């Protein structure tokens, strides 16, 4: 059995909303009186509310985190997902000891390095080299450690030419590269990473993700990783946790967790009945998927969209797209220009049907998108999530083997030939 390396027990964090001024003095004095003189529990801990950012609440105290219990084992790479304000960053901040919890505790076994931002403490007047030392020391490295890795860091950052120039002359991308390069050579047993990979160009992101994978897989370190990018969560983290309004909604294998997270968001948004143009004159009325039958891998599929046009619309183009749960485009079709199907004018009730001869998608869940474009590249309805679709497994290759989308998003007609050659 592997050791527990982080143990979170009944962790809660309360925040006070609004500004600090004369009003807070009264609360501070009352709290001090109640807890230090009367030895009562803090009166303001009782009145907090769950942290739901969109709705007006009664209390000025909210719980950014409420009763979090979590065990993280040595070597685990755990993704933390959740909407804005779900408490992800608060959790990381408490773990990084930037702020303390209100109640509860976290026990950690080993050196913990956190990366809530890259290039923390860079001084604009100092050169890249000087900043590597400064930033490394802030992250907890000793000078000797940094010196021994200096060449690797400079090489990884790809800023060799600028290394003796003050960082104020750097482009923002170079700043990030240098910052991440320092952090990449941090060697704690536990690494806590907030969404820092979202910056930098594509080449660098790939490099950064690669480095993270290397750290977690080859060096057996424990990593906690917050991201909104489901694709990178899926790639890096075998396990995930969903946070919702300050509590853990569920935890488990990343595949399942990501699906659950997306379903949770879908059901909240009730997208189905609310797809219309900005002025409300064009509206999606009804959708029918495969005449109510199940979608099967490699089989015929049919999508019907009923749209109501209140006014005459000239030459609309209909868009139907399928994306993976991590929002990668898989299929993108439009009447014009992609399929070259001229629609003409539309008014009143209109039915758009899309027939697919063979639905070459691995079994699993996908997202269906719908939109309407007008000539001159302008959207009447921007491609919008309509619903999720569930493709059932089917023995497309006639081998008894089912293709699931965690193995392969696509299926394809193919044949093999294996023979010895001279």
């Amino acid at each position, binding site marked *: 059995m592997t050791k527990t390396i982080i143990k979170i027990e009944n962790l809660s964090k309360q925040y006070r909303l609004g500004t600090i001024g004369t009003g807070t003095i009264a609360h501070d004095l009352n709290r001090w009186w109640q807890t230090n003189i009367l030895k009562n529990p803090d009166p303001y801990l009782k009145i907090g509310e769950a942290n739901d950012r969109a709705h007006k609440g009664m209390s000025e105290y909210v719980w950014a985190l409420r009763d979090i219990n979590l065990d993280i084992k040595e070597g685990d790479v755990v993704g933390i997902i959740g909407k804005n304000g779900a408490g992800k960053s608060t959790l990381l901040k*408490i773990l990084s000891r930037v702020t303390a919890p209100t109640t509860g505790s976290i026990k950690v*076994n080993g050196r913990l390095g956190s990366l809530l931002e890259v290039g923390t403490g860079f001084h604009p*007047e*100092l050169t890249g080299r000087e900043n590597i030392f400064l930033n490394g020391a802030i992250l907890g490295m000793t000078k000797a450690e940094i010196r021994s890795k200096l060449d690797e860091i400079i090489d990884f950052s790809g800023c060799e030419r600028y290394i003796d120039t003050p960082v104020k002359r750097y482009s923002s991308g170079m700043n990030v590269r240098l910052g991440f390069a320092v952090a990449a050579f941090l060697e704690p047993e536990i690494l806590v990473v907030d969404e820092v990979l979202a910056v930098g160009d594509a080449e660098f992101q790939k490099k950064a993700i690669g480095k993270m994978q290397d750290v977690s897989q080859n060096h057996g370190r424990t990593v906690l990783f917050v991201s909104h990018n489901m694709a990178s969560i899926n790639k890096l983290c075998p396990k995930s946790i969903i946070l919702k309004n300050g509590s853990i909604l569920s935890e488990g294998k990343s595949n399942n967790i990501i699906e659950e997270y997306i379903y949770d968001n879908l059901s909240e948004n009730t997208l189905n009945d609310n797809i219309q143009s900005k002025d409300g004159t064009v509206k999606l009325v009804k959708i029918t998927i495969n005449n109510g039958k199940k979608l099967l891998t490699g089989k015929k599929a049919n999508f019907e969209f009923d749209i109501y046009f209140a006014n005459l619309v000239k030459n609309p183009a209909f868009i139907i797209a399928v994306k993976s749960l991590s929002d990668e485009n898989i299929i993108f079709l439009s009447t014009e220009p992609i399929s070259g199907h001229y629609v003409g004018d539309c008014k009143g009730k209109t039915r758009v049907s899309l027939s697919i001869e063979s639905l070459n998608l691995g079994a699993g869940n996908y997202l269906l998108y719908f939109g309407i474009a007008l000539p001159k590249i302008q959207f009447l309805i921007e491609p919008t999530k309509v619903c999720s679709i569930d493709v059932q497994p089917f023995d497309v290759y006639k081998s008894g083997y089912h293709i699931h989308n965690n193995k392969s998003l696509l299926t394809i007609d193919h044949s093999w030939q294996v023979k010895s050659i001279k």
Partner: protein
Amino acid sequence: MENYTLEIKPKSKLLDLNLKETWKYRDLLFLFVRRDFVAIYKQTVLGPLWFFIQPILTSLMQLVIFNNIAKIPVDGMPPLVFYLSGNVMWQYFSSCLTLTSNTFRGNAGIFGKVYFPRVITPLSMVISQLLKFGVQLSLFLAVWGYFMIIGGTEVNLIPSWHIVLLPVLIIIMAGLGLGAGMLISALTTKYRDFTFLLTFAVQLMMYATPVIYPLSFVEGKMKQIIMLNPMTGIVETFRYGFTGAGTFSWELLGYSIVFMAVLMFLGTVVFNKVEKTFMDTV
């Protein structure tokens, strides 16, 4: 039961110095000092020479106004030596105080992203100011040496044995600045009122320190008030050590030491209490 190396809890003990961890971060302390010292004079030609210009100009200005116009005596020293000694000492204390009192607000950006023992920051400020003080002290020594060699002044500028107290004086000043600065920085995280108070208080306190007048010049009740200022004993001892003129008493110096100890204790306790959650209120 497993052993955990770190436990993150809501509140810490009253006085949790965590010296072991602070020692681990000594390289950071050094790099902060270097940053503060180097960064100020990047992109200047004269560099640290600017450290000379500030006290010289201030002293010359005071010489004209307080000595030539207001005719305030200078204990028989060459006026430039008198004013320079006061300014060099006062500058160190006041810049320690003003810089450290801004610890939490000025570093919220870093503190909000990374953990390291917070006390490193005010410590680094006190040390980098010490470097500046060293440069300015050498300026004072040059001026003092010059007047000692040409002679012809009322006091003969022969140093007394009290000159060996200089390191003690520096430690007391650093402690006073650090203690008060930590206290104020902790208080300003939530209520900004103290920032306004501080600018005023530092100005006022300079006039309550024998920088532009000798302690022997004031009498009666005023003298007692000025002797309540812990900086008084320090400036006077410094002058006495180098020139043999002025006031020196063990009581005055002892008072400064006790004051410093109390301030350091209070500052550390309050700083400790605030450092864990200040990010929520700053």
